[in-house]
């Protein structure tokens, strides 16, 4: 199927050297630290205490709500500590369980359940996307809004990452099984699989596995095509009415990343909960890129070591990609469900966005994939004119970063826009 696109957006010049690298498995050797909050659900309650013996797949954090995702041990061994305040990736503190691996890798499987939703909940599946939401919550919402199109997003969020295309070509069966399950849960009429049109391997693999059950859509990997708003526009030709809390379910679509769907397939077929992440690790100069399958809780330092990336002269370590990823404070930070990839920038490659003055060249306007006038919004935020920023649709911004990327004076536009949004929210909550 050919598909539409969107105006604006960019092709990143960084080449995706990792696309054809198969996943390498990383089993943590020593200690794993598993934060008890890894999604937008809530903090899970610790089910273990210091000294407990645990096995891989054993629930160590149970969600406080029925829709939340559980958290599992990812190595077998002994609980070394339950930390009350462990620094979270995005700031703040959450509880975390530290497990000392015994190297045996003993597993416990999921209990069988008639209701696939229960299985998904117990398997701790979230939608592995920029904002990981517990999958059950997402499915329930889609169901209640009668979403009838399921879109499996195998487009990589950012071009330097290739884990999704790779996963699709390696784990076709799991994906197919996951699609079946989810399709039956929400009663979707149609299924689309969005794939980078250049990822020939993935396309042919899924093509032969799915037969006619799903439509495979090859898309131009123009950034940020993988954002669900733009994906539904390209595939379904419809735009989601953008309110402050937009939801693609509003137009009857459910977009799930391919990793999510594969996890569902694995949970249904093999009764395995989520203990691994499938991520791409890249450096700013493109060398040493690898796709890895890594246990949750493994310190990023260990992952980098495995990929042969030295800590020497390291400037920035980014969870995710260079455009939307979160820079992390510390390489001891563990891989969690929130980590979409790892991008390492050396000191000399760090880009400094200055508080410069816009020259109104209009490049940002041309590039913005959602049709905003970024320089105006950012300008109003900077000058504290928040209501005007709101009049100019600040909340429609998806923070893709294209505007800042092209700006010749390097205004930190996304930061200003985030700032504006935060100030508006703060003003509202104080009223």
């Amino acid at each position, binding site marked *: 199927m050919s598909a539409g696109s969107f105006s604006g957006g960019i092709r990143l010049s960084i080449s995706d050297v990792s696309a054809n690298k198969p996943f390498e498995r990383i089993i943590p050797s020593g200690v794993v630290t598993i934060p008890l909050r890894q999604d937008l659900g809530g903090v899970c309650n610790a089910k273990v205490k210091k000294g407990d013996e645990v096995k891989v797949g054993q629930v160590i954090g149970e969600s406080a709500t029925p829709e939340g995702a559980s958290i599992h041990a990812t190595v077998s061994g002994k609980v070394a500590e339950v930390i009350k*305040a462990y*620094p979270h*990736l*995005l*700031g*703040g*503190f959450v509880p975390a369980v530290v497990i000392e691996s015994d190297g045996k890798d003993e597993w416990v499987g999921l209990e069988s359940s008639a209701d696939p939703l229960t299985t998904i909940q117990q398997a701790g599946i979230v939608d592995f996307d920029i904002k990981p939401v517990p999958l059950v919550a997402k499915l329930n919402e889609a169901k209640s809004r009668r979403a009838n199109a399921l879109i499996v997003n195998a487009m990589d969020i950012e071009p330097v990452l290739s884990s999704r295309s790779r996963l699709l070509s390696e784990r076709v069966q799991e994906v197919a099984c996951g699609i079946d399950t989810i399709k039956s849960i929400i009663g979707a009429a149609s299924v689309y699989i969005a794939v980078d049109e250049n990822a020939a391997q993935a396309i042919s693999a899924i093509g032969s596995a799915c037969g006619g059950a799903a439509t495979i859509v090859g898309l131009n990997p123009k950034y940020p095509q993988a954002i669900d708003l733009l994906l539904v526009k390209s595939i379904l030709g419809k735009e989601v009415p953008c309110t402050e809390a937009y939801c693609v379910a509003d137009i009857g679509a459910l977009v799930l990343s391919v990793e999510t769907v594969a996890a569902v397939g694995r949970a249904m077929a093999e009764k395995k909960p989520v203990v691994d992440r499938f991520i791409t690790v890249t450096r700013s100069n493109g060398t040493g890129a690898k796709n890895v399958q890594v246990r949750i809780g493994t310190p990023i330092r260990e992952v980098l070591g495995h990929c042969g990336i030295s800590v020497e002269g390291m400037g920035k370590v980014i969870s995710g990609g260079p455009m939307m990823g*979160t*820079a*992390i*404070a*510390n390489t001891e930070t563990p891989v969690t469900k929130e980590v979409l990839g790892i991008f390492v920038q050396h000191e000399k490659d*760090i880009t*400094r*966005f200055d*508080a410069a003055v816009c020259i109104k060249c209009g490049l940002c306007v041309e590039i913005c994939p959602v049709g905003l006038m970024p320089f105006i919004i950012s300008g109003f935020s900077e000058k504290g004119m928040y209501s005007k920023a709101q009049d100019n649709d600040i909340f429609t911004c998806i923070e893709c970063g294209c505007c800042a990327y092209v700006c010749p004076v390097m205004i*930190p536009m996304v*930061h*200003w826009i*985030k*700032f504006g949004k*935060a*100030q508006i929210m703060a003003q509202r909550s104080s009223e």
Partner: protein
Amino acid sequence: MGPVTTAILAMGGLGVFLSILLGVAAKVFFVYVDPRIGQVADVLPGANCGGCGYAGCSDCAAAMVEGKAPVNACKAGGASVAQAVAGVLGISAAAAEREVARIFCKGDSARAERKFKYMGINDCRAAMLVSGGDKSCSYGCLGLGTCVANCPFGALSMGEDGLPRVDDEKCTACGTCVKLCPRHIPKVVPVSQKAASLCSSHDVGKLVKEICEAGCLGCGLCKKACPEKAVEVVKFLSVVDHTKCTGCGKCFEKCPTGIIQSLVFTVV
């Protein structure tokens, strides 16, 4: 008819017409405005800082005249303005205690740990959006000076150690810094307050010890030491009740981090 008569008649006629028109207008638009509102507004500083909680000085003036706001409602104006307002309204102003802002964090660049090197917009509120701020302590001053840049009276300056300083002479206790600081580090206290624990952290002592040499551990030694029972520990943070504190200094000696201290010495 001579030219003078013509002129007198013409202008007189215009005068009659105009005054009748104005009479009608006065009926149509009649509004009684308390003349004192204008007088009070003239006395107020006119900075429109909003510290009084009204939408600007003239709003505050109206509230004062109507008795809805006390004569000393204008924090920025201080006692002299309160006196003047009281004069206009013919009531006596209770001598209000002058207040100033104090910085409730001592975690300067040498003593408090940072999680990472922050790079981005030079504003504490913006820094909060990047992984919650670079300071390891999630209660401490970020030191980017949002308060300094926005103090309407120029009373704040950024010290070399990365903490803001208050100029007591200039500070009018308007509260702008209190409102803007994302970590609520500046607090407005009576100028006579003698002692305070200059820390805002509600973290447990163990964590505080790891990340900041200047933090209140919540150990409670000060509370025990205080003869006046002026010190309380609220969620691992000691708080001094200034109405009881005599400034005897007993607590200073006991505090393991020296964070509870005499404010008299901190005045620049």
